[in-house]
């Protein structure tokens, strides 16, 4: 913009800029007002509610509540399930994205379609599909028994195995998409250069490929961890009472116990955990950028 107008006289240029600025503010207003009223203000009032007692006095006792007894174990369960989900979707996502990135473009596009299309189908519906698949007479148990890998059906539902299988399947599209993008961005010439200098496959993978995709790996893992933290559809449907997560607890406290303040405190804790995760993502990506710059 500045370059093309450099020759123009100063006055009209300022006038033009200010008209563009005014138009920008005008056009931005609907979104800004809407989100301030229905997104920022509600979260702000959640924050406020979490530090107020029933009589309106300031208190931290909802947080004390959230961090003791059953509620504390729900917090640990949430962190554990989110971590397990992140780990599995990262490992499976890495191998899957790697395999897809080696395929011919058309086949790769088809494979990515199989990864991405389920993402647009309701999570509830997909969870239901997994429940049918993992039941005592479901496809997985039938397969295991017919292969001779199991004598009796495995209990794959209403425990942590079911939850981790289900939530991993829900998070996988995110990790695969992210990692596939990172892997496609890796300059193959670097790998070829290393090979031409006599590096073996393992060395190339460990010394060149892995460092190049590492920031993407960290981001993908953290992303699925963050997403899993606030999730409860699949854990509620595929888990048992021992797999209750924070989001589910918030729902119970509001709907069944009318404990809005407690729910608000749990919400703020979830929010803080999410921000901590995002901060880590930011840190990792800036470290990655720095590394890339120093390498080139």
């Amino acid at each position, binding site marked *: 913009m500045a370059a093309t107008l450099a020759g123009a006289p100063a006055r009209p240029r300022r006038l033009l800029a200010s008209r563009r600025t005014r138009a920008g503010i005008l056009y931005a207003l609907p979104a800004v007002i809407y989100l301030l009223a229905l997104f920022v203000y509600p979260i702000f009032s959640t924050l406020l509610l979490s530090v107020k007692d029933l009589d309106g006095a300031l208190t931290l006792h909802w947080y004390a509540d959230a961090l003791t007894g059953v509620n504390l174990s729900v917090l640990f369960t949430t962190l554990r399930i989110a971590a397990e989900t992140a780990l599995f979707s990262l490992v499976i996502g890495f191998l899957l994205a790697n395999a897809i990135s080696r395929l011919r473009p058309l086949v790769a596009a088809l494979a990515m379609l199989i990864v991405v299309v389920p993402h647009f189908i309701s999570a509830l519906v997909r969870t239901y599909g997994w429940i049918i698949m993992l039941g005592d007479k479901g496809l997985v148990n039938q397969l295991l028994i017919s292969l001779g890998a199991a004598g009796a059906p495995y209990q794959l539902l209403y425990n942590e195995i079911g939850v981790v299988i289900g939530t991993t399947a829900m998070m996988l599209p995110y990790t695969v998409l992210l990692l596939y993008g990172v892997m496609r961005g890796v300059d193959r010439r670097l790998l070829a250069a290393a090979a031409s200098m006599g590096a073996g496959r393992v060395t190339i993978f460990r010394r060149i490929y892995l460092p190049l995709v590492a920031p993407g790996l960290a981001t993908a893992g953290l992303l699925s961890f963050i997403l899993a933290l606030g999730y409860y559809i699949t854990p509620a449907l595929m888990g048992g009472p021992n797999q209750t997560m924070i989001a589910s607890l918030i729902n119970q406290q509001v709907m069944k116990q009318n404990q809005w303040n407690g729910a608000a405190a749990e919400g703020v804790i*979830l929010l803080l955990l999410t921000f901590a995760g995002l901060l880590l993502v930011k840190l990792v990506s800036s470290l990655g950028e720095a590394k890339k710059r120093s390498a080139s």
Partner: protein
Amino acid sequence: MMELRSTLAGRIALTAFATVVLLFLALPIVVIVVTSFSKSAFASFPPDSWSLGWYETLFADGSKWPGALSLSALIASLSTVFSLIIGVTAATALTRSELPLRSAVYALVLGPLIIPHIVTALGLFLLFEPASMLGSPLAIALGHTVMASPIAVMILVATLRGIDERLEDAAASMGAGRLTIARRITFPLAAPGMVAAAIFSFITSFDDFYVSQFLSSVGTLTLPVQIYNSLMFDIDPSVTAISALLIAFAILALVLVGLVRWLGSGRQNALLSVETATALGAPGKETP
């Protein structure tokens, strides 16, 4: 030689693993569709006998599904309209103006994607409960718009960035007013993006569970809440049929998005080749 063999084995193992994972990602969806045509839901796969029974119960007297379906469709339509208004204006501000605090506005607009949905839903509950608006389809639609508008903004920002601004400049230089430019140039080129934004807003609202769960009341349970309740408390076999319908809708919507994108991609290229050849010529294409 040995290294070659080991990499070949590794590659085969990796491909086999990927195939199994892809199969497992697709299978739950296939299984639902197949089971929905079975006589007995749930029991076994593949089914022993086939019928359309679950589709009949779906629309039988006293069924909760038609009501939930039309409520969700109404809410999703409202939310789509709101999201498009927000999306079009915000994307225009972000791509076609000099906006002060631009990155702050962008962060605000995309915020709902980052904040856990349950927290946003709780906040909306705290907003609408005192106003006695729980159970109001309008309140639910307003809530869904918070979740859907970031996606609309993202798609429309990408769309507007993809439109060559030289086309708009060229029209202006030929004396077209701003409305004419919007109507004759920008809108036709942005239309495929707007259709995509509308479809994704609709899907987001239609599938939303967290906001609906908090904002609905006994009389107004959206489809996802009904499905959740049905799966959680009383597995009602007709849930397979409604799930299969939702799968069909989602795939149809995605095909539609693909089709619109494909049809739209030719348009700008045609316009550009004509315009650049005549009016714009070289000046726009400054070589560094």
